[in-house]
């Protein structure tokens, strides 16, 4: 079992086509932090703290996630829904801890999405 010491929700409006970079102000992007897991949500499982509607279940199925460290892609185009615990009986991918480089991370809309929706992902992380 992997023990999680910290979690942080990241949410941001998603472009209806193409890629949308992650916002850079997340607290887990510091030098002493390593990401150990990520969980995604849609409109059936949450609402963003700023009140923005999250992507629908069908739109979530059209999104992939890419996470990077400084050397390149660690998680490459993995389906958003594969990170939704409600879709996987609560089982989540425990990552080998890695230092995330948010400047290289993005979500991709692989088909046109409903406008003015947000994605929301919780990052589980540990501090050195």
């Amino acid at each position, binding site marked *: 079992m992997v023990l999680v010491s910290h979690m942080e929700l990241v949410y941001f409006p998603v472009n209806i086509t193409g890629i949308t970079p992650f916002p850079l102000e997340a607290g887990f992007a510091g030098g002493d932090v390593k990401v150990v897991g990520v969980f995604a949500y849609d409109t059936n499982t949450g609402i963003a703290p700023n009140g923005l509607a999250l992507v629908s279940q069908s739109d979530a199925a059209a999104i992939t996630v890419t996470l990077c460290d400084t050397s390149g892609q660690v998680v490459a*185009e993995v389906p958003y829904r594969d990170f939704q615990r409600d879709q996987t009986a609560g089982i989540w991918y425990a990552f080998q801890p890695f230092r995330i480089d948010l400047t290289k991370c993005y979500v991709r809309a692989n088909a046109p999405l409903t406008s003015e929706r947000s994605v929301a992902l919780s990052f589980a992380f540990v501090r050195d």
Partner: protein
Amino acid sequence: MILAPRMQLVYFALPASGTAQTPFPTVKNLLGPDVEILGVTAYNASQLSNAPDGSTVVSAADSIKLTVVLQKGSDQVIQQVPYSDLIRAWNAGMWWALRPMPLDLTKSYVKNNAAITASTAALMFIYRLRSES
């Protein structure tokens, strides 16, 4: 619990033919002797409607008509395992953890065992770089 060091989606077009064997494409992140596969999962349109190139992923109904062969050298390490058995969402979130090994993706393939609607197979490999392990 096995930790996932790296993950890579692989997707490619499947023809409609009921007997086709479609090899995996080469994928930059999975090339080279440094790469060892630790696990594999698959997706149908319920989990991923469209691949990153916009193509339509195989339907749930068609996904049960597919089997997967993964090859290491001359050894078929995964031999005609149902694609559906690799779909995490259909298996309580569990994924097959493999003994770490290099794979010959171009010798590996997905087989249509009945006619399907032409669409895209999408599988995700969990892998590590030996130099990092």
